[in-house]
């Protein structure tokens, strides 16, 4: 009888082994980023540029954003609609501003205005990055990101490597390399089509903007281990 009581006591203890909390240091610098990728306009063009504010965990948040132009004779900004009109040939810098919890945040983009009729070669606006290990596992490789008709493509170079010994490998685009809370998973061990671990490969991602994310990261997803990180920069 005593043995039975002991077994039940152990069962009770076992079934109630506590799930506690791990505190994750997920702070990142706040950022204001121009999302639209416009480098060249023709005189008479009207565009609506977009910018996003990312808070201190990399999460997109609504903020009042102010748009400014360095030369209103070239680019005019409608304060109400934030539409930008190309008025005359030349170059102007568009600047966005907002106030974050850490102070003023800005981002800017140089836009060239050409006269109507000039054939404008679409800007490639390509991004690039190099994955570096953040843990003891193998993580390496260069990549480029370019726009497609409906989104972007991530082109991994021949030197790309993810560690095959990782239990639960996954690849993400994110604005916070320390958390997967707002990350976009683009490849994972449990995908129906499997996972890519080594060598050249191209991911096609529809509905994703080229400036939407700042990092490409490799994770061991089940055990929450960041194993590789690349900052996405302009090529």
């Amino acid at each position, binding site marked *: 009888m005593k*043995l039975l009581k*002991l*077994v039940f006591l*152990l*069962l009770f*203890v*076992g*079934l109630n*082994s506590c*799930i*506690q*909390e*791990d*505190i*994750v*240091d*997920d*702070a990142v610098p706040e950022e204001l980023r121009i999302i639209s990728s416009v480098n060249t306009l023709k005189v008479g063009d009207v565009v609506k540029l977009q910018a996003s504010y990312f808070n*201190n*965990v990399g999460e997109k948040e609504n903020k009042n954003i102010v748009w400014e132009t360095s030369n209103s004779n070239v680019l005019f900004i409608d304060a109400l609609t934030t539409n930008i009109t190309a008025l005359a040939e030349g170059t102007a810098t568009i600047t966005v501003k907002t106030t974050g919890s850490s102070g003023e945040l800005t981002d800017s983009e140089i836009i060239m205005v050409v006269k109507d009729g000039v054939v404008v070669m679409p800007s490639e606006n390509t991004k690039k990055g190099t994955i570096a290990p953040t*843990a*003891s*596992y193998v993580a390496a490789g260069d990549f480029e990101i370019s726009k497609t008709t409906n989104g972007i493509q991530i082109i991994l170079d021949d030197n790309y490597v993810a*560690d*095959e*010994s*990782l*239990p*639960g*490998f996954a690849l993400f685009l994110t604005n916070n390399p320390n*958390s*997967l*809370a707002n990350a976009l998973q683009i490849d994972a*061990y*449990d*995908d129906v089509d*499997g*996972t890519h*671990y080594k060598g050249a490969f191209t991911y096609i991602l529809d509905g994703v903007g080229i400036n939407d994310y700042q990092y490409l990261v490799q994770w*061991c*997803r*089940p*055990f*929450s*281990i960041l194993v590789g990180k690349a900052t996405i920069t302009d090529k």
Partner: protein
Amino acid sequence: MFFFQQSDAQWNKGKGNGYYKISAWSLVANQHYTNTGEIDPNATRGNFTLSFYGEYGISNKLDFITYVPFLTRIYQNAQISGTNGNVLQAGEAVNAIGDIDVGLRYGLIKKNHFALSTTLKLGLPTGKNKAGSDGSFQTGDGEFNQLITVDAGTSYQLFSKPAYAKTYIGINNRTQGFSDEFHYGIESGIKLGNKLWVLARLNSVNSFKNGTLSAQNSQGSIFANNIEYVSVGAEVAYYITSKLGVSLNYTSAVSGRIIYAKPSYSGGLFLDIQ
């Protein structure tokens, strides 16, 4: 994956004799040995196992052995943002039976203070090899393995107190693409007073790295192939009566690959009939 439990061989029990033990085993780890033997952090995971271990002497030379982890609880802590307190990943737990071992030990030589035996232990895939929201809360490896060992032991007097030392080597034939393993271990104990045994042990598992299971062909399963470790541990066993006793154990991997890098603790109530 990522954990180990070891039940050690003993000398033959003798016909009708037995050793039975109910244990609670716990391992909580926020770091692990990587595939290169480095120590890296991970989300805190816990493994709590309630088990029954039994040895029964079928004859003077043949023992039946079993290990039944009748409750294995695998859990992971909730991941909480240190910046805003939001839940980044909810905590999760799975309760299930683990992989059961059954085996036979056959006494080869028993002469004076020396004993040599061989043991065949079969690992039955009774646990869940895919559990939880992402399949990683496994309570078993999903494969049927056969571990055959040769065990040698001797008893002697140390500081005028009863003592023993034993060792084993073994080969673990694993299936389902897992690599086979070479096992070895040593153990030594001494009896202090009339009721207390204190012992220390070292166990090691080494992979032959001959398995075909890989990340590329695992079909979405989480697996830990080619686990290796050297663990050291200490145990005290106190006989409350001549047959009934309690034991406490501490074991930690001092090196390893794809295994948790934190110590485990266990406590048990045993019945030693001889």
